[in-house]
């Protein structure tokens, strides 16, 4: 098929998928923030929502960025070695461990949040970025382990063994052989960890009690609830909060593409 035609088709698919997001942008520009009388285009745009959002959410965006980045690092630090172990070591309890990880995915977040609140309160982790990073990692660690393990299971043991013969310790072999080979899957797992954490709302809600540390999702939520909802500010904040993440997505995609074309296994 002609490449231009493929691009056109791709744009069409994307347009269908992203229509709700366009609709949200449309809503954010409506004076009342509602789309009941809106046409397909915001003919009479109002930027009040954006003014509110920009003046109130800047700091929260930075908080979200710090928490999400921290979650990616912590998740990969915990998950990468564990995944390698589950993929390559012949421990007898591996199936049991996998079962535990699968079940861990299943626990409703609210159950975790409730238990954590009391513990955090005693440990002084409420309203702290490390506290949120740890909690948000519950979204991503089990997931990252499953994803990474699925990739690492395909790594030929001979690669590592060769390095060991050359005198490298297990940890060094892991760092110098396994990690570089798994770059693609690490980026995928990291990407999703970032997104999980970025869109987390439950822990932001339950584990922060002041304005000091407040991820942007909670900033959005603050515009809702109680008795009046400021939809244009909500939608505008949602649009703004997507921007930094979109930039990161584009950068990360570049790396995935680079890794794929560079060839992972030489």
């Amino acid at each position, binding site marked *: 098929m002609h490449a231009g035609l493929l691009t056109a088709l791709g744009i069409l698919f994307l347009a269908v998928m992203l229509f709700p997001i366009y609709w949200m942008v449309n809503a954010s520009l409506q004076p*009342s923030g*509602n789309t*009941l*009388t809106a046409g397909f285009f915001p003919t009479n745009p109002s930027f009040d929502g954006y003014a509110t959002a920009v003046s109130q959410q800047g700091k929260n965006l930075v908080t979200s960025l710090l928490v999400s980045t921290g979650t990616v690092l912590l998740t990969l630090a915990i998950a990468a070695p564990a995944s390698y172990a589950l993929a390559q070591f012949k421990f007898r309890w591996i199936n049991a461990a996998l079962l535990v990880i699968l079940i861990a995915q299943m626990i409703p977040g609210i159950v975790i949040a*409730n238990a954590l*609140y*009391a513990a955090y*309160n*005693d440990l*002084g982790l409420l309203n702290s970025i490390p506290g949120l990073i740890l909690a948000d990692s519950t979204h991503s660690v089990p997931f990252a382990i499953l994803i990474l393990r699925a990739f690492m299971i395909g790594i030929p043991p001979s690669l590592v063994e060769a390095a060991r013969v050359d005198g490298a310790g297990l940890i060094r072999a892991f760092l110098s052989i396994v990690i570089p080979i798994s770059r693609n899957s690490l980026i995928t797992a990291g990407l999703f960890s970032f997104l999980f954490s970025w869109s987390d709302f439950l822990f932001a*809600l*339950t584990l922060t*009690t*002041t304005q000091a540390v407040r991820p942007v999702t909670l900033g959005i*939520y*603050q*515009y*809702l*609830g*109680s*008795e*009046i*909802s*400021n939809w244009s500010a909500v939608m505008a904040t949602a649009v703004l909060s997507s921007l930094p993440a979109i930039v990161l997505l584009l950068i990360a995609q570049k790396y995935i593409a680079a890794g794929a074309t560079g060839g992972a296994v030489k």
Partner: protein
Amino acid sequence: MGTKSKMRSFLAVAGVASLALTACSGGGSGSTAGSNSGGDVKTLTVLDSYNNDPDKSILQASIDKCAAQVGVTIDRTTVPGKDRMQTVLQRSSSRTLPDVLMLDNPEVKDVASTGALSALGDYNVDTTAFAGNSLDAVTQDGKVYGAPVPADTLGLFYNKDLLAAAGVEPPKTWDELKAAAAKLTKGDQYGLALSAAATYEGSWQFLPFMWTNGGDETNLDTPQVKEALQLYVDLVNSGSVSKSVINWTQADVKDQFVAGKAAMMINGPWQIPALEASPNVKWDSVQIPINKAGQTPTAPLGGMVWTVPMTGDKAKMAKAAEFVQCTGSKDSQMSLGKARHTVPVRADLHEEYVKEVPTMKTFTQQVENARARTGKLGKDWPKAATTIYTAVQLALTGKASVQDAFAQAAKG
């Protein structure tokens, strides 16, 4: 921080307090209400759910006034209304309740029955000035646990231009309501909008019809209650009310009204600022229509309540009670009521209030006859509320007849 020590002192006090509430109130606490004891208290923590402007800053101004009066600074936290109870429970279990806590009035009895709130009488807070119906929601076993802030309720808003164009008078009875709604329905415009969502909001909106007709939450299987449901069903089946009402929140209802897609709506005065922000919609309000002559329009009483949680720090609790006492003052009630389009809960203020805020005339009358949701059932109210919204949903979607809806919903 001092969390640990606070916890320990809490445990020491709470053990005694929960066992001997009555003894406490008779004893030494009388003196703590005095102005110079507890003078070492410099800060009070406050938790409320007015998390959005303009309400957030309006309440801040009101809080600051009373804080200055009792001589403390305030450390205030706001949470979204939806998560207020969850926050309260978490803080309750971790012994970090605020010194002053704002609850929604139907929550007070439930929280009070856990032992987490102190009775205002223990600090000699005078609650006699509050209107009787506003105290129903906060009185448990003869003790008052909260001071209501100015209240809201439900009424019938109508679009003056649309009614005038159709030659329709604002309806006073159910028959007039049905006729008016039918006449006002044309094109993509419905006669009436209301919320019948599968949430407490849906129950809250059904109550004015149910109560006005003599229905009662202690027994939902009565003709009075079913007639109110029949009204809903008639309105929806005749096409005067959108089938979508089963998913609409009250904010959605307001959006429909503002967009000119509904000529009338059931809603509350907290929507007035939003209505005033859309000057092209000319509106007025009347009380909830009645079914038969002689009935009194009876809507639910809405609104928040200031309470003093059992934090264990006696000096702070006494200071918090002083603060709460101040919020019930004429001055505080009047200024907050004017700023937020809510009705002061002191009968002695109503005349002056209506004079200053004429748009609130209807709602002031409606508040005077309003009923507290938890007045009769206390902490069993949530169960009845669930049955009500479920029955409304079953009937409006045709899954059950009006006859069977409540019985079927109660089995859920």
